């Protein structure tokens, strides 16, 4: 092991960390809104013209590898001349936009399924109480159903965020210099696979466990009422 290589290339890794964090946070941010909207539609509407396309979207993104989805967008869009002739091409020719686009849709699909499950499982009593208090559908959704189901979704949603963090490593395949991309550059320049990839692994582990720590604290705070007595600390 020769760690001077890593120190000399710390700049590339810094850039990688920045890109990884940016990809995760932006895709989780957009994915969250996609998921909330789609999950609310799925649980409230019986209109097949609305629910079928959403189901198809979720089915496709959960049933195929993220790598293929990325290739379909990054390489695939160039096959269509009508896309190339519009403003869309300005975005889809950029690897960075394609990665973000796919990651947001992917995590959006998984999260839709998570939120759908937790919305369905809202205790009946809470809904009845809201109705008895005279709340409208929209107010009930905003004040009762969504906050209550976000809490129950938190453990599964936390896992999904970690999966997304790991998923962003694929961005390195389409030329983006994220943490994995930095490691691949260092490896190919100096032929030092251990140093390059072990450093990347350690960086990912640090980010993963920081996220797990934050999520655990959020669970302790918002799910305190579901915990066994004595173990709830804010």
């Amino acid at each position, binding site marked *: 092991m020769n760690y001077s290589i890593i120190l000399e290339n710390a700049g590339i890794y810094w850039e990688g960390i920045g890109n990884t964090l940016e990809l995760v946070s932006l895709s989780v941010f957009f994915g969250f809104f996609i998921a909330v909207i789609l999950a609310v539609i799925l649980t409230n509407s019986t209109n097949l013209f609305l629910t079928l396309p959403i189901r198809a979207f979720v*089915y*496709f993104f*959960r*049933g*195929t*590898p*993220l*790598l*293929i*989805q990325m*290739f*379909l967008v990054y*390489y*695939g*869009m*160039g*096959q*269509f001349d009508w896309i190339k002739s519009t403003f869309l091409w300005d975005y889809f020719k950029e690897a960075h936009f394609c990665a973000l686009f796919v990651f947001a849709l992917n995590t959006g699909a998984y999260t839709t399924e998570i939120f759908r499950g937790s919305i369905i499982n809202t205790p009946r009593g809470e809904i009845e109480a809201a109705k008895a208090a005279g709340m409208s559908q929209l107010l009930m959704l905003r004040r009762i159903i969504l906050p209550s189901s976000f809490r129950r979704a938190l453990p599964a949603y936390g896992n999904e965020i970690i999966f997304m*963090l*790991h*998923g*962003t*490593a*694929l961005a*390195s*395949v389409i030329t983006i210099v994220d943490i*994995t991309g930095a*490691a*691949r550059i260092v*490896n190919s320049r100096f032929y030092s*696979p*251990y140093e390059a*990839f*072990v450093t*990347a*692994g350690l960086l*990912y*582990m640090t980010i*993963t*466990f920081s996220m797990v720590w934050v999520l655990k604290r959020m669970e302790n705070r918002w799910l305190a009422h579901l915990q066994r007595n004595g173990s709830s600390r804010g």
Partner: protein
Amino acid sequence: MMPLQGYGPSIWSGTLLTINVSLVSLLIAMILGILGALAKLSGIRLLKIIAQVYTTVIRGIPDLVVMLLVFFGGQTLVNQLAEIVGYDGYIDINPYIAGVSTIGFIFGAYMTETFRGAILAVPYGQLEAGYAYGMGRRLVFLRILLPQMVRHAIPGFGNNWLVLTKATALVSIIGLDDMVRKASLAAGATRMPFTFYAAVAFMYLMITTVSVYLLQWLEKKYSFGVRKD
């Protein structure tokens, strides 16, 4: 297959390799998973620590990074070892072996957690009953623990299998001729990337859909006689 410009058979052979890689890695993952779960539940401290480090590290690092580390790092390691032994030539690591063992190794960590939970879900009284009958530890494991934990393990196992199948797409990056790589080659030759990646996406959808139905059937079969209230 006209829309595939004659590349249909090539994609199909890649599909078979993808299925092959998935199944062999699944086998490795299951063996590692059982060993890991037993290690975590054993009273031996060293085994517990090793299993804990294994599952923690693997779950903290992306699959792709582990795969690149094994593929490039393993290559260097094997050649350094060969040099120590006194072998001068250059040894190339077979990408199939690198791919299958890496995916098996990664999902072994997830299986460890699944199996550990399933073993804990088997009521301890049943194991005690086995011992009371005079069965040894091995017999209790084979006759009582293993058949009963299957039911508890199936949901988690199914999830792991679905994620594992999709993770096999990564082996194309280390140069294995699975369907993703076949599609890349065909896409390059015909300049029709969307068509070919869509075909591969379709094959993956088929594999995952069939798997979901098989798993539902298995779950029903193993929950036979379990009361649901």
